[in-house]
């Protein structure tokens, strides 16, 4: 059986300065209770890798508002003015990455690949300072793999062994991040006995998940 924790105990595993991947897209498919607990925990100096920071004070936006984040790697911060303010004030070091490149960088980290070769961003300011590679006379941008200390992900159903399935657009970055972090903590909507999820429906095998967040009391 997979170790299972309350959100407030799970965040105790995370030290100040940790590098976190956080699933979700504008908060959809984010581990809401885990983010609540993390925002309340008073952590500092976190690096967050995520698609976005949701809206002001919502989901990942709670971490921003709590001043917990000093570095952010994301594709979009447009709907969270607090993140933009933090960036402009120099309080948050923000690296903006095209969304498709961001998810492939995370995948490359998890899959043991050396980087991502893409045309996206080539010749734009998003590519400044980045390595390029010539392949058969064509130029490709080389984007480096991303890894993290922790992945904080959300799932629809988990079983006791940590097998995960996701629902609809709450899937997004979650299954990709599950392979790219040293420690994977998942907050599922419900937890079921082993054998209740068909092997063909599992999108993340339990073997890569380290902790499940228990259901709300």
């Amino acid at each position, binding site marked *: 059986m997979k170790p299972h924790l309350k959100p407030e105990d799970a965040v105790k595993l995370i030290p100040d300065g940790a590098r976190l991947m956080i699933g979700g*897209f*504008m*908060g*959809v*498919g984010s581990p809401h209770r885990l983010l609540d607990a993390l925002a309340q925990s008073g952590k500092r100096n976190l690096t967050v890798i995520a*698609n*976005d920071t*949701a*809206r002001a004070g919502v989901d990942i936006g709670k971490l921003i508002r709590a001043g917990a984040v000093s570095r952010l790697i*994301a*594709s*979009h*911060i*447009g*709907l969270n003015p607090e993140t*933009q303010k933090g*960036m*402009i004030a120099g309080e948050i070091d*923000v690296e*903006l990455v*095209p*969304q*498709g*490149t961001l*998810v*492939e960088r995370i*995948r490359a980290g998890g899959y043991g690949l050396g980087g991502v070769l*893409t*045309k*996206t*961003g*080539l*010749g*734009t*300011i*998003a590519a400044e300072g980045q390595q390029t590679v010539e392949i058969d006379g064509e130029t490709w941008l080389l984007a480096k793999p991303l890894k993290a200390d922790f992945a904080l992900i959300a799932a*629809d159903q988990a079983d006791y062994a940590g097998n995960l399935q*996701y*629902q*609809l*657009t*709450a*899937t*997004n*970055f*979650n*299954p*990709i991040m599950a392979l790219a972090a040293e420690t994977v903590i998942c907050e599922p909507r419900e937890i079921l006995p082993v054998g209740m999820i068909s092997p063909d429906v599992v*999108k993340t095998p339990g073997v890569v998940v380290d902790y499940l967040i228990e259901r709300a009391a």
Partner: protein
Amino acid sequence: MKPDEIIQRRVARELKPNSLVNLGIGLPTGVAKYIDEHANVLFESENGIVGLAAKPPEGMDDPDLTDAGGGTVSAVPGAATIDSAYSFGLIRGGHLDATVLGALEVDERGMLANWVVPGKMVPGMGGAMDLVTGARRVIIAMNHTAKGAPKIVPKCTLPLTSIRRISLIVTDLAVIEPTDDGLVLRERAPGVTVEQIVAATSAKLVINGDVPEMDLGVAA
């Protein structure tokens, strides 16, 4: 007809039956309203679904079924959920027949700037750079001018979204196609003259003979 409706109706006519299309948030989203339901145009949203449909009936929305703006949506029968990597595999890999996006500027080379105004607006590029680089056709849907200032300019002053040339510009005044020879004025909006279009455009336009009026499928 309102400017947005002109743009949306005209763009709708660019989308082919049985094609896969990504509509940007805002004005482009409204294009879906004007697609013939029998055309079987399938919409994908980069947050992870093929088969996106209109807003759900009041009280029937689900927080796990959303568009790229985070708003709840519905889906067509036969929709498919995809993760973010697969979503951009479709986009980058050339499986997306068209994307419809807004613009801050488009220039004579057909280059697009739509993601950042340095020092002012820093939203991030989200999926825009992948969409503009990877979609088979990139259709820009925008008002011809912003606060009276032309958005179709000789050369973008804002940072580019991609160095890939976009396919078509549809505005409330005109349809313009970037080509090797420059920006070709293809159509006028109903009641708009070539002179009005030229006056509202700071880029050079290539005008070949008579410029026909847009066919919007309905009386404007």
